[in-house]
């Protein structure tokens, strides 16, 4: 959960991934995905807004660079999970983001869900429901930049950029050049004493 | 007779009364001017002067800081009885009138049955006498059943015990020009006056509010100013032609003020009335769609309000009439179009006129007495009301605290109607005491007690 609130900025912060770190772990995850899938065939990366989508695009670009048969645009999509969340009635209204499927759809594909932070697992639960309404993938996998623990559902990631043990009171903030201002890449922990 | 009487405000269990019927009001400012003592005895003002001695048994009232005024006379009150006793009764309506500073009200004819016969006006007159809070002067209908088709027995009503002098189809316009002409002519026989509700019916079919910028946005059918002005223009010409006395009820537009000014300059015998709400509120209030602001004629624009205030100040408009129109709550707790028209006014009239005319510097308390008491009494031919505060005059006197301020709460009013458009508004002025024919109906700002039913044939008419 990210809370972009001026008060949060006052808290002591610790950088856990720099821009270079992020690029390196994404490269590793891209290779892991290719390895697990035995190549780029029938692969689809579905990013979860907001920051999962740019991460999916970056991964797709790296996969395309490694496998010339893959076209990055053709395997990337965006999956909005807002409408499928289990806390809609208890949170302020969230405007939905558009869901965009790659041109070939997801039926029979291996869909890799991409998100920035894996925490309770509830977002991924919502994503699985959202995905099922769009079609029938052959398999679904999960790639995340950071796994901070504290799972509340039986969900685990297949590809993890960095495992980050945290206290529940701490906030993990991911900034990406595509979505944040100032435009830079970093992962910080806030609220550490 | 049983009537529904609200829990409050009710008169004190044991009213404060002088055993000798003598009351000394000390240090009141007469019409807002010089301070003097007023001695009231046996229903008349027995003495006016400085440092009057308190006679034996007199109840002395400290009136320092208060303004003494002749009791207000309303030419336009809906008491709803007979027929709609769930909205108001003569008893509750006259309590409200007393609290509001009135010592006489004219009960409009649109009751059920309509006050179009001697029998109905005598009934209302009797109920008023029995209540004993104020003089109740019934208004007779101009046409049978307010239908605008044939004249009611105006002479019978004039000759009845109620001695009707004001005739009105209020709520409906006497729109047939021939009928209006005949009515104007006929009432000359007993010095009557026709009080016209000026509303051209075809132009206002289904009308919901003032036709203007606000109605256009709200999508509510408009009540154009011209529908009022065209009838007033016609009627003043008819009054000139017949040499009769015409009274125009609740004038609401700047154009109407202009026409009446023109008519008066030509010597036409016309008088005009404005309501307190038309002196204060505008059609902007309707944006809430709250039917408490639904009234006929409708709330107009800021420039109309301005013209009405100036017209009242310069005498073009002669009087303030409340058009007090109580309704049961279910008639207002609904969609705008379904809601009844009208608002209560008896208990707020003084405050609204003080706020709009006196505190704006347009008028002083002497002018206030003219437009709320002397002139309406003269138009209604009520000889014992609206008199100067002088020795020998009938003791219809009120004491007003002009410095008081209060937040209007319809649930604390004596009227059964909760439809006050001023609810929650802070208004100046408060009636501290009212003497009706020498009897203290209101003391300490609360109901004290009604006057005992007097002999019915008091020679009050001139």
């Amino acid at each position, binding site marked *: 959960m990210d809370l*972009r609130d001026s008060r949060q900025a006052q808290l002591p912060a610790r950088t856990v991934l720099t821009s270079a770190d992020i690029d390196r772990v994404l490269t590793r995850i891209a290779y892991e995905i290719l390895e697990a899938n035995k190549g780029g065939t029938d692969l689809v990366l579905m990013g979860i807004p907001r920051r999962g989508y740019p991460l999916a695009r970056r991964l797709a670009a790296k996969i395309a660079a490694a496998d010339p048969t893959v076209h990055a645009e053709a395997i990337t999509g965006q999956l*909005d999970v*807002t*409408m*499928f969340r289990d806390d*809609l*009635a*208890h*949170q*302020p*209204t*969230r*405007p*939905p*983001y*558009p*869901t965009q499927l790659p041109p070939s759809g997801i039926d029979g594909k291996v869909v890799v869900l991409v998100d920035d932070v894996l925490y309770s697992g509830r977002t991924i639960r919502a994503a699985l*429901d959202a995905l099922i*309404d*769009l*079609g029938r993938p052959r398999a679904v996998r999960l790639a995340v930049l950071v796994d901070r623990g504290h799972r509340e559902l039986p969900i685990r990631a297949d590809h993890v950029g960095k495992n980050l043990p945290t206290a529940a009171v701490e906030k993990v903030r991911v900034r990406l050049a595509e979505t944040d201002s100032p435009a830079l890449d970093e992962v910080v922990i806030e609220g550490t004493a | 007779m049983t009537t529904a009487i609200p829990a409050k405000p009710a008169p004190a269990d044991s009213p404060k009364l002088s055993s000798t019927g003598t009351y000394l009001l000390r240090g009141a400012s007469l019409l807002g001017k010089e301070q003097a003592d007023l001695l009231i005895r046996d229903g008349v003002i027995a003495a006016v002067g400085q440092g009057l001695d308190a006679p034996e048994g007199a109840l002395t009232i400290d009136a320092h800081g208060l303004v003494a005024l002749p009791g207000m006379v309303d030419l336009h009150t809906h008491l709803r009885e007979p027929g709609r006793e769930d909205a108001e009764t003569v008893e509750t309506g006259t309590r409200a009138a007393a609290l509001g500073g009135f010592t006489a009200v004219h009960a409009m004819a649109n009751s059920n049955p309509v006050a179009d016969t001697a029998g109905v006006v005598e009934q209302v007159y009797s109920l008023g006498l029995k209540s004993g809070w104020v003089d109740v002067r019934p208004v007779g209908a101009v046409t049978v059943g307010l239908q605008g088709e044939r004249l009611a027995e105006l002479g019978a009503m004039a000759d009845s015990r109620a001695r009707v002098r004001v005739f009105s189809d209020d709520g409906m316009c006497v729109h047939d020009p021939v009928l209006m002409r005949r009515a104007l002519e006929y009432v000359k026989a007993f010095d009557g006056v026709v009080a016209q509700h000026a509303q051209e019916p075809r132009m206002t079919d289904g009308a*919901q509010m003032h*036709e*203007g*910028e606000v*109605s*256009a*946005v*709200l*999508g*509510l*059918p*408009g009540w*154009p100013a011209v529908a009022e002005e065209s009838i007033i223009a016609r009627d003043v010409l008819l009054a000139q032609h017949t040499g009769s006395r015409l009274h125009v009820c609740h004038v609401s537009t700047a154009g109407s003020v202009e026409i009446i000014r023109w008519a008066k300059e030509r010597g036409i015998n016309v008088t005009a009335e404005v309501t307190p709400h038309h002196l204060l509120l505008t059609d902007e209030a309707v944006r*809430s*769609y*709250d039917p408490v602001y639904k009234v006929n004629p409708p709330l107009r624009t800021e420039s109309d309000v301005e013209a009405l205030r100036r017209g009242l100040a310069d005498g073009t408009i002669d009087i303030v009439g409340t058009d007090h129109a109580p309704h049961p709550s*279910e008639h207002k*707790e*609904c*969609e*705008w*179009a*379904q809601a009844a028209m009208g608002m209560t006014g008896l208990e707020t009239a003084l405050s609204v006129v003080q706020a709009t005319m006196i505190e704006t510097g347009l008028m002083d308390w002497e002018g206030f007495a003219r437009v709320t008491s002397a002139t309406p009494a003269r138009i209604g031919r009520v000889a014992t009301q609206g008199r100067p505060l002088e020795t020998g005059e009938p003791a219809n006197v009120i004491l007003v605290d002009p410095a008081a301020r209060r937040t209007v709460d319809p649930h604390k009013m004596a009227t059964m109607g909760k439809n006050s458009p001023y609810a929650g508004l802070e208004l100046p002025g408060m009636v501290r005491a009212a003497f009706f024919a020498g009897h203290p109906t209101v003391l300490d700002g609360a109901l004290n007690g009604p006057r005992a039913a007097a002999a019915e044939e008091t020679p009050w008419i001139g």
Partner: protein
Amino acid sequence: MKHLLSTLDLSYQDAISILDTAEAMAAVGEREVKKLPALRGRTVVNLFFEDSTRTRISFEAAAKRLSADVINFSAKGSSVSKGESLKDTAQTLAAIGADAVVIRHGASGAPARLANSGWIDAAVLNAGDGTHEHPTQALLDAFTMRRHWAQLHGVPSAGTDLKGMHVAIVGDILHSRVARSDLWLLKTLGAEVTLVAPPTLLPFGVESWPCKVSYSLDETLETKPDAVMMLRVQAERMHSAFFPTVREYSRRYGFDDVRLDRLDTLGMDNTILLHPGPMNRGLEISSRAADSPRATVLAQVSNGVSVRMAALYLLLSGESSSQRTPQEVSAQ
């Protein structure tokens, strides 16, 4: 935004937020599973005091696609027609547990009364009240125009407005809740609006409205509007001296075949033709015009479901008690 009562008091941010959300909702209609679980367990009541099958089924489809429970309450033939007051009806719906009331009523301001009277705590959506407003119709019109305008400019429609667009609204402006709602919303979104009608069918004081007014459809077409909205002529107006005869009205203010061809002559290749429906073919619009590629009538119908989904979602999904500003919403 707790209620959706009018477009006059709809802020720019709220309008854009509804239209953007509607874009996300539109995609759902093209999927195999046309359903989202967002309003599961919520109850939406369609309270219709006037017959309007089109609007009701559009709201019904919208609510069902969001998995809400829908209760259709047609006031005709019910206790309401036997004199039950709006207050009693509202309290009944509150007791049933309605989370939102979609109300269509013949009296202007009835939805505002429902929302502000304290009779019921539900979100109120105005589905057309008297001759006042019809905000979801205006939103679907704006949505349709925005897609067209964005496409012309080669940009995605989400996030954009109607700046620079010129829209003519033609017909019975006086009695049209659609015209009012359209005008306020189109102005908020930056469009220029011309109202075209005979003087008898324009509201008193229209000069103060933020638009141009014309008595001539032909002169207005010369100014090359980007969209022309034709309003339905109500049968009951034909008998109240608003215009001499139906044929005269049709000749002067109908979008007939001659005017359709003039769009081509004038080089107005990208001008679209809107109608809120139901159409009087041959009266305010000719059959050929209604079926031409310029006409967006059917797109308007499907966009109506998306826009109503968006409105229901934005009014009902958050914490029910809180009143939120769009700034707060976008900060999430």
